[in-house]
């Protein structure tokens, strides 16, 4: 009850309420049943009316120090005691401790003759006596309608019942009156006419051979209440009405991050993994590695010394341990250390609600920080999405409130798009990882990507998801022009790329070499031309020198000749003249 105290003390509950102590019911009713007033609980046979009423009394006697009177009209005390023992209620002890009085009111029609006026003062006296002996605060009348079969005069009976309810109110008794559900009305004999303060209807429905009990607060005069139909169960600890955490969305949001156990996946999730207390959905078609991812998540948690809980709906614990060994995850050590519990069951074993309550109980006992549900889609097998979603929502709310990080796997049917998560719970999830098979080039490969992850910068990249005997690893995929390549196609593409790069490198070298030799050739040519130019220049100089020499020589000759001819000037002249 500690969690509900804030709800009990809300100013809106000006109407005093008496907590029933029944899980969930006090949340729906905002604190319990109206104090000092009768409440009508109606339902068909086997819907759990008596159990609800009994738990109301037992909890009152044991938890709230309010003794109670159980007046039964159908079962006798011994039968009832035996029946509720299965819920762990020890009526014999409570009776001997004077906390509960059981009074079996029985009328055998065949023994009774009716003549003249009468009233039911005897019933009042009995009830009053029982109340007085233990100082009762709570009263249950189960099922007062049985009187209609025993007493022929219904006019008197109705008048007396009206008086009885009035009387209970006057005595300040918080009472539960049970009634059989009628065809058209709330109860067969119209008890709702007299009990107008609070009306609760119980119902048992069978869908796909699995029965679910439901509870609805039809009416609660002077108080706000949840108006929906809520599934409830009769379990080993009495009744549980889901939602366990109901009307509010006020859980804490932790900023702490948890590793998923796959380093590269953490990288994709903003580099640090998921938030503590968040919910992670891993969806994918068969064989995409969902369970392995879940096991890795558990393994990582146990390595940190945290407690983990695995709900498996496909495999037995032994099978899981063996299979996870094949991918290098040894879960058995954690079980031995008491860090891990595996709960395997067939989803069809119970209704969804029962599964959830079982989970709820286990979670409360084991107090894990990490839960893996594998797969959640099995829980909703063949079920109406509309009824699955609110139930799961309540579970997720509960887990969030406990700051438990949860990983749900979800199987997507072959053919459906992977985004089409069967359960329709994706909106409840904080992080959604999608595992996908890519079939190409004669092989099937796994890819993973982060479809969404609230509150963190997450990668938009598709990664190849590799399962080996060393566990899970993520590899970058090759992004081709129009598709993602994985597996050998990726390897082939990568080697093609390597070859092409090598080729290009060689090409470059060749080109450089060519350039170098060309440069050398040009340099050689330049040298040749220079040499030629030098040679030509030398020749020209030589010629010039020769001519100069010749001229000199000629001049010399002339002068020599002139000297020679100095003696014979005339002769010289003659010669000249002759020339």
């Amino acid at each position, binding site marked *: 009850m500690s969690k509900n105290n804030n709800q009990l003390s809300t100013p809106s509950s000006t109407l005093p309420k008496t907590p029933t102590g029944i899980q969930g019911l006090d949340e729906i009713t905002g604190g319990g049943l109206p104090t000092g007033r009768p409440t009508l609980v109606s339902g068909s046979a086997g819907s759990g009316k008596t159990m609800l009423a009994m738990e109301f009394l037992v909890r009152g006697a044991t938890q709230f120090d309010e003794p109670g009177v159980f007046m039964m009209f159908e079962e006798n005390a011994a039968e009832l005691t035996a029946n509720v023992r299965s819920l762990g209620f020890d009526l014999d002890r409570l009776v001997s401790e004077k906390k509960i009085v059981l*009074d079996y*009111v*029985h*009328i055998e029609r065949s*023994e*009774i*003759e*009716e*003549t*003249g*006026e*009468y*009233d*039911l*003062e*005897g*019933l009042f*006296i*009995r009830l*009053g*006596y029982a109340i007085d002996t233990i100082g009762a605060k709570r009263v249950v009348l189960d099922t007062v309608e049985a*009187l209609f079969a025993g*007493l022929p005069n219904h006019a008197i009976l109705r008048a007396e019942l009206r008086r009885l309810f009035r009387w209970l109110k006057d005595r300040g008794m918080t009472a539960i009156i049970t009634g059989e559900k009628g065809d058209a009305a709330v109860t067969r004999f119209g008890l709702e006419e007299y009990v107008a303060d609070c009306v609760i209807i119980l119902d048992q429905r069978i869908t796909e051979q699995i029965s679910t009990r439901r509870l609805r607060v039809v009416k609660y005069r002077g108080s706000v209440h949840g108006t929906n139909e809520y599934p409830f169960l009769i379990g080993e600890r009495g009744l549980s009405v889901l939602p366990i955490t109901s009307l509010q969305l006020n859980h804490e949001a932790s900023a702490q991050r948890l590793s998923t156990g796959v380093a590269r996946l953490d990288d994709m999730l903003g580099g640090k993994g998921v938030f503590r207390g968040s919910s992670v959905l891993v969806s994918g078609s068969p064989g995409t590695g969902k369970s392995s991812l879940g096991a890795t998540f558990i393994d990582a948690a146990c390595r940190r010394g945290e407690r983990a809980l695995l709900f498996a709906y496909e495999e037995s614990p032994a099978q899981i341990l063996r299979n996870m060994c094949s991918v290098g995850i040894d879960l058995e050590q954690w079980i031995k250390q008491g860090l891990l519990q595996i709960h395997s069951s067939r989803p069809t074993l119970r209704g969804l609600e029962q599964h959830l309550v079982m989970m709820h109980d286990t979670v409360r006992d084991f107090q894990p920080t990490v839960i893996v549900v594998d797969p959640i889609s099995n829980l909703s097998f063949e079920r109406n999405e509309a009824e699955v979603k609110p139930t799961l929502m309540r579970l997720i709310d509960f887990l969030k409130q406990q700051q438990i990080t949860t990983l749900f796997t979800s199987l997507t049917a072959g053919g459906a798009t992977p985004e089409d998560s069967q359960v329709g719970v994706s909106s409840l999830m904080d992080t959604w990882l999608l595992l996908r098979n890519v079939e190409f080039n004669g092989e099937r490969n796994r890819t993973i990507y982060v479809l969404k992850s609230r509150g963190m910068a997450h990668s938009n990249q598709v990664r190849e998801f590799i399962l080996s005997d060393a566990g899970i690893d993520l590899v970058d995929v090759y992004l081709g022009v129009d598709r993602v390549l994985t597996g050998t196609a990726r390897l082939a593409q990568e080697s093609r790329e390597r070859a092409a790069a090598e080729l290009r490198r060689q090409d470059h070298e060749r080109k450089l070499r060519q350039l170098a030799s060309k440069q050398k050739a040009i340099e050689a040519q330049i040298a040749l031309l220079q040499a030629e130019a030098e040679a030509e220049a030398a020749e020209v100089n030589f010629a010039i020198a020769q001519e100069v020499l010749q001229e000199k020589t000629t001049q010399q000759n002339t002068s020599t000749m002139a000297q020679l001819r100095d003696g014979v000037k005339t002769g010289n002249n003659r010669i000249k003249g002759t020339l």
Partner: protein
Amino acid sequence: MSANESPTNDSDSALYELRLYVAGQTPKSLAAFANLKGICETHLAGQYRIEVIDLIKTPQLAAGDQILAVPTLVRRLPEPIKKIIGDLSNEERVLVGLDVQPVVV
């Protein structure tokens, strides 16, 4: 009505052991007692014993005979136990309820 025990005749030879449950001295209980007394005197003279139980004084006795309605007349003997509820104003019905052959007057 003041006494719990109201033996009318030799109690040892009573064949009919009757118990009348009432809740206080209401007109209904007074009428029932008067009616019962008259019927017994007429049809069971000397064979009956009437015990009147006021549940307001002894409420713990109500559960034993499964009393709901008052007044209730319980025929404890001869067995089987028979109950007649109401103010016993219909003599014929009371005789049928007690399984008594009416004495023809």
